[in-house]
């Protein structure tokens, strides 16, 4: 059990790192892109540009959450 926990912790640290919001931002962007692709509203050019924009926006939001002023 301890080995499994340590194994899981290693991969969590390796992939997710010290800010889980980045991983969530990437996954959410790709999920939205997948939904747009399934809806069939864009061609490849539209989808790739949308994907790039989604990732940029998601990263910006995660960074904004990081540096927001803390409530007293």
């Amino acid at each position: 059990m301890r080995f499994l926990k340590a194994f899981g912790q290693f991969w969590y640290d390796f992939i997710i790192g010290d800010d889980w919001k980045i991983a969530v931002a990437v996954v959410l962007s790709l999920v939205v892109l997948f939904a747009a692709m399934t809806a069939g509203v864009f061609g490849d050019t539209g989808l790739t540009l949308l994907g790039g924009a989604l990732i940029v926006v998601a990263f910006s939001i995660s960074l904004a959450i990081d540096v927001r002023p803390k409530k007293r």
Partner: protein
Amino acid sequence: MDAATWGLIVATFVACFVEMVEATTIVMAMGYTRSWKSALVGTFAALGALAVVTLAAGYALANWLPESALQLAIGGLLLIFGLQWLRKAILRSSGRKAVHDEDAIYREEVEAAKAAGESKGGLDLFAFMVSFKGVFLEGMEVVFIVLTFGLNADNIPGASLGAAAAVVIVLGIAIALRRPLSMINENLLKYGVGLLLASFGTYWAVEGIGIFRDGRESLDWPGHDLMILVLIAAWLLLSRIFVAVLRKPAVPAPVLAGDIPVEVKK
């Protein structure tokens, strides 16, 4: 050699260089304070384990996954790594996170080594384990970057060449200087690697979403590979905007020598 191959070699060289500097600091701290023999045995054991992981993962990725799935899986992970590095670079450049300091890391490792007490027997287990863990963890990221760049560019030898050159150069500098490599501007290098990983990661992860459509064909970026340059420029511009917006104003009060900026919540 064409421009793409040179780009591949430079990308893997810089990424590996940064990770090697960090691993070398840990091994040197163990070597000088505990036992060089145990630190080096730990280092070579970790390098052996990394070689096995590289071969196994490389074979599995190259042979079992369709191209678009490969792009999505490793592009997505590369993107996460790249954005983590970019986030830290932005926070450090804007004064919101302590700057990476190899001297401070070396001192911490030395103190931990002294506090661990004397070892009994031939092999110093503390030095062995710390060196093994340090080299293995830093090396895993390099392995991943080499595999990702190498497989996507269909040039594993080129990517490996970049990484191997970094290993040789960092080891050469460390042996010549015999002290932590704190003179290297690691933060700037990490910024550059973060930009590269974020750009290539964006490109491949978005392409790889095509695995879920009929025919499992990758999405096609306008301008194809040239779009990577546009993505690098876009991430650079965005990061500079963030640094400018987030930069903390200089504090007029006197600052003590050991003070470091307050680290943001991780």
